[in-house]
């Protein structure tokens, strides 16, 4: 029983990082109806931004500390938000009126470009991510071991998801995002500047990916330029599982993939981990082709 609970905690911590990445995929899909395959690499760039910024921050603020970690995460999110906007402006916007497939292939190209440019500029060898947070003693509840990093990952994910929900549902730009997601032409006719909305969506999604990158690197402090590929792929699966285009769906999908993979690794064998995770995806899509929460919700951003 303790072991099962422990595995669930491991799975939730892993899944919540996937959830943050999945939201970026689903937001872009909601607005533009295309999969931004470079999203996993933004996640990687988020971790590297943290890697390079942390030593600079350490000269001003004490590191490891909570304040320092928040500043590093904030800067990394800002850097990636800017990068996301830049990528959309340079690579995707010129193709907006072209067939969706053209943009999709471009996204794969951008992804490869970021990975190999990363290898060129950062070096291909894995790097040790600096310690951002003080290592607290392991909390023991019964036989359960909760380490501070896992709790922080869960807490930060929750806060970011609530903040995102607020932005999308309660703010003017969020309303505009939903409007564009329903019908871009009609929204434009109503005076919504779709270019601004799309840029904002990329900024928001990329910032969340950067946050996920930092959380990932805090938990698994070895980072390399190809680290975004697998989490990116899994997050994409999570987004589809939850119903692509649906925000709570992406979060739910991330958690389901995280928990399934952890349980399969823990109780069956990690060799079958990906196979079983994908089998779950196929089963769910057979029963509900639009994903778990797809279509039910009206909100599509």
């Amino acid at each position, binding site marked *: 029983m303790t*072991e099962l609970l422990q*595995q669930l905690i491991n799975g939730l911590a892993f899944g919540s990082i996937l959830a943050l990445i999945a939201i970026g995929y689903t937001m872009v899909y909601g607005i533009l109806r295309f999969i931004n395959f470079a999203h996993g690499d933004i996640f990687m760039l988020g971790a590297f931004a943290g890697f390079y910024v942390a030593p600079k921050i350490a000269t001003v603020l004490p590191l490891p500390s909570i304040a320092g970690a928040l500043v590093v995460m904030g800067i990394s999110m800002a850097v990636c938000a800017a990068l996301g906007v830049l990528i959309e402006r340079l690579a995707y916007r010129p193709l907006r009126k072209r067939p969706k497939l053209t943009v999709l292939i471009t996204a794969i190209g951008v992804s490869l470009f970021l990975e190999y440019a990363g*290898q060129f500029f950062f070096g291909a060898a894995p790097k040790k991510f600096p310690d951002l947070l003080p290592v607290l003693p392991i909390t023991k509840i019964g036989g359960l071991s909760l380490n501070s990093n*896992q709790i922080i990952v869960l807490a930060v994910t929750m806060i970011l998801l609530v903040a995102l929900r607020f932005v999308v549902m309660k703010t003017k730009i969020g309303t505009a995002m939903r409007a564009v997601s329903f019908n871009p032409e009609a929204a434009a006719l109503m005076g919504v500047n779709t270019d601004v909305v799309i840029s904002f969506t990329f900024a928001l999604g990329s910032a969340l990916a950067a946050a996920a990158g930092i959380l990932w690197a805090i938990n698994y402090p*070895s980072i390399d330029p190809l680290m975004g590929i697998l989490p990116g792929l899994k997050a994409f699966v999570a987004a589809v599982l939850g119903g692509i285009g649906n925000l709570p769906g992406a979060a739910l999908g991330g958690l389901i993939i995280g928990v399934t993979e952890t349980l399969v690794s*823990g109780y069956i064998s990690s*060799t079958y981990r990906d196979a079983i995770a994908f089998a779950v995806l196929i089963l769910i899509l057979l029963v509900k082709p639009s994903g778990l929460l797809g279509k039910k919700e009206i909100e599509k951003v």
Partner: protein
Amino acid sequence: MALAGTVLLTGCNKPAADAGAGSDTIKIGEFASLTGSEATFGQSSHHGTQLAVDELNASGGVLGKKIQLLTEDNQSQAGQSATVVRKLISSDGVVAILGEVASSRSLEAAPICQQSKIPMISPSSTNPKVTETGDYIFRVCFIDPFQGTVMANFARQRLKLQNVAVLTDVKSDYSLGLAKFFKQGFTAAGGKIIAEQNYSGGDKDFNAQLTSIKAANPDAIFVPGYYTEVGLIGLQSKQLGLNVPMLGGDGWESTSLVPIGGAALEGDYFSTHFSPQDTSPVVQGFAKKFLDKFHESSDAMSALGYDSVMILADAIKKAGTTDGAKVRDALAAEKDFHGVTGNITIDASRNASKPAVILAITNGVFQYVQTVAP
């Protein structure tokens, strides 16, 4: 496809070999993981190789000719080694191939060298399958059955461990082989393997496997993987409150291991080929030359890289030619070659029979514990 490859290779190789005979250099090809996930291995090994070549050239070369080392990077990626080795043989016309650290990648290159009848020496691939490829494939390191048994006996007799869990990288031939021989050795010595878990090289999250291992309550965990994952495994096991020592093999020995794993690796042990703390004059001489040239401490991979060049040069001298078949015969006949990593005797399966060293991680440094003779 394989047939076409052979025709192509031999076809291209002929003129290159003829040109080599007339030129004033001996071309030796090296393929290594200079970048990518096992980059520190490739770099170390390459530095050792480079040091040996420079030394040989400074003392007049081999057969009166300078050695020209051609190095190709495979980025630690599957598939790349075959490509670069084909290039080295067919377009550069090298007389021998040196490489690799990782058994999986040596296994990619070995069939190509065998087909082209170009001797290949792996400095540090320990999986038995590497030299089983054919009679042109050699190595200067010990093999996993020996390494696994050494660690099993060390765990059982010196550390007095009873119940051990094994965590294997299922994507690596090296890890699978070492795990198998450790399990055999440990069970034969009266110990018990109480949990077996797997991961795939490149994974970052091992919490699931470690939680299962923790439930089995082992005395220690044997992790026959590479340093990239071992550091993270150490960290995560301590975070789960799994405070037992970890044991491993030569895949651990990297300057990147301790920076990632930190204090979580204290008190862990691994087997390897060489320790710069060994007081023998050969080792101390090498360690000093290496430090002077590269301003970093030497390790097993660099020492093996060095030995692979030296034994090849010795074989070429004895053969009196760079002809593949004759160099092969000379290599196969090497006996008690005085290498930096101990006395090397090439056995009938073209493996090196030589001692292993066990190191402990104490205060973030690799400390010499003992040497185990074959």
